[in-house]
């Protein structure tokens, strides 16, 4: 109320041509009023994600520190480095250690070097059981000594996530939890949840499921060519979807049966 007493006219009403009324707040007033369509302004401690388009949508314009971030994908180890590495690069350049907990496949450093990470600042912890993954992640979050933490948690319960989130409040490093897509229907204590998928033409489709602020309606499309492939891509290869042959069944001399072998199970 003190603001109101100091400013007898806190806002003026401007009438537009079409009758639309827009509130113009005085500067002191606009600092204390939060509009429903703004992103949460109290997320201040962030690291840039490396994607300008994504930064615009993230509260505090970047991956948050002092909290956990969920990255949901349909399958593990398909696109994690592609979406995370632009944000990890500045951390690694500053000398931060990157700790990777329980990735489903072996990390391959030559490819990660192409993405700007460093082999001197990479630690791989092979934690297999869900309990080991959680314990290791919690220990690293509590120690607050890593530059960034990426943990694959295929099976984790909401209360365990809440515990990690509480621990992460004193952790300056961004903490990424890679989880399966099905987790989007479960509740989660993580303040930021991002769903990512890859599409054919070297694009990542990113949808923010949960953030501090209004809900994210449309899907972001980010151009990303992984692991040094950009140097060998011909213009034709930049649009692989155009290369997909349209299957015309050969009708001459054979019955029109597309051979159906069983799908690869692996």
């Amino acid at each position, binding site marked *: 109320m003190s603001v109101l007493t100091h400013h007898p006219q806190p806002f003026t009403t401007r009438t537009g041509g079409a009758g639309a009324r827009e509130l113009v707040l005085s500067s002191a007033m606009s600092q204390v009023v939060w509009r429903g369509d703004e992103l949460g302004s109290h997320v201040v401690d962030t690291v840039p994600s490396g994607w300008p388009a994504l930064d615009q949508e993230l509260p505090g314009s970047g991956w948050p520190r002092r909290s956990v971030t969920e990255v949901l994908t*349909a*399958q593990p*180890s*398909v*696109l*994690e*480095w*592609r979406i995370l590495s632009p944000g990890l690069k500045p951390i690694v350049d500053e000398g931060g*250690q990157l700790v990777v907990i329980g*990735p489903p*496949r*072996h*990390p*391959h*450093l*030559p*490819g*990660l*070097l*192409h*993405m700007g990470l460093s*082999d*001197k600042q*990479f*630690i*791989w*912890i*092979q*934690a297999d059981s869900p309990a*080991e993954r959680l*314990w*290791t992640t919690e*220990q*690293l979050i*509590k*120690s*607050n*000594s*890593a530059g960034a933490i990426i943990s694959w948690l295929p099976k984790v319960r909401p209360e365990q996530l809440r515990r990690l989130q509480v621990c992460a409040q004193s952790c300056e490093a961004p903490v990424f939890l890679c989880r399966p897509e099905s987790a989007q229907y479960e509740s989660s204590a993580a303040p930021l949840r991002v769903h990512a998928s*890859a599409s*054919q033409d070297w694009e990542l489709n990113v949808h923010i499921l949960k953030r501090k602020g209004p809900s994210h309606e449309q899907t972001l499309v980010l151009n990303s060519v*992984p*692991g*040094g*492939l950009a*140097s*060998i*891509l011909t213009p034709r*290869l930049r649009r*692989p979807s155009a*290369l*997909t042959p349209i299957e015309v069944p050969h009708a001459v001399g054979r019955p029109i049966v597309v*051979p159906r*072998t*069983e*799908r*690869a199970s*692996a």
Partner: protein
Amino acid sequence: MLWVALLLSPEQNAPQLNEELRGLSLYALQYSPRTAITENAVVVELEASIRLFGGKRNLRDRIVAEVEALGVEQVAWSSTSLAALAFARAGKENGIRGSLTALLDPLPMETLNAVEPHLTTLTQLGCRTLGDIRALPRDGVSRRFDKRLLVAMDQAYGLRPEAHVWIEVPEVFKAKLELMSRVESAPAMLFGARRLLLQMCGWLAARNAGTTAFRLRWLHDAMRSRDAGDCGEVTIRTAEPMRDVEHLCRLLAENLAKVELAAPAGDLELEALDVHPLEELSRSLLPDPVQAGESLTLVLERVAARLGPEKVLRPVLVEDHRPEWVSQWQPAPQTLPRKRARQNRFPQPSFMLPAPLRLSMRGNKPMYQGVLQLLAGPHRVEGGWWQRLAKDGVENTGNVARDYWVAQSPHCGVLWIFQERLAGDETAWYLHGAFA
């Protein structure tokens, strides 16, 4: 002068008491080199160490908190060592507030060891306290009793200098502890082991050193089964020289949790194996926020202690053209090679499969969650006949002849697959990595 007396409980047999006194003196050496053993107590002169340990109050709180685990019955402070010992025997802690004479006078005279031979005579004279003895005429006392009594009285009251044989810091640390009762499970030994660790850390502090390896050995008691053996042991290694009791204790706890005792244990033995000089962090007025490297080492050590050292890995890049040999992994504490491998300028996947996965085919196209679309290639990788590998008793060479392709799968992104060349009928497509 500020003396502290650490009094052990007297109800023990002589060899055990000597062992405990020795251990306690090793612990006390971290506070001051002026440490001596007097009768059944350890006395330490601390005047010069007060500032280093953050003032009298902090020093007192730290010592009182730590010595309880070492079996100390009473701690007492005074300005002479004999007075401190007398206060400890009388069960009083504080002998520094007020004048020494006024504080010492009401103590019972048995608290001074030199009184012991003349106890009967003095009692018959009507003496009860040290003050009573002091009130006796001095020349009469020196004639009637021996010289020791008068000297001890003068030393206790600070009228005559005291002479001590200081404890010397031994070159190696090896301490023994007899457990109060037989211990049947390994984690339960931690209580006794902590006592030994406290002694070891005191010894390390006195030598300005830290340990990178120590060994805890437990001796099985006499009523063991025949196949149990004499003793068991566990060796703990740390990445950096270390003398933090809490960290060493946590490491030991993680290791002991995995140990199963073959028979109940009766004695513990702790030995410092590798000792290196330790440079302490300077205690500056403005704390330095960048101390992350050290603490990451500690947490990785703790993780390695639970999961096993082969689970916490750092990459070592080797110059090899075969993808599975390029990244080697080694346990995190080991030092990385100084020389860096040259970077491969060709595209490389960011995830590799532990072993190539054979793909099924539809027609002549490989499939992995849908038909794969080959985008770029071939990238030919050949050679490796010089490397001999023995697997399951069959010796083989690491020779490969492969054409690598970048392929796109409709559901799982960009993959790195290869076709085996010159394999006769075995020619097939394999999935080897993912551009994740």
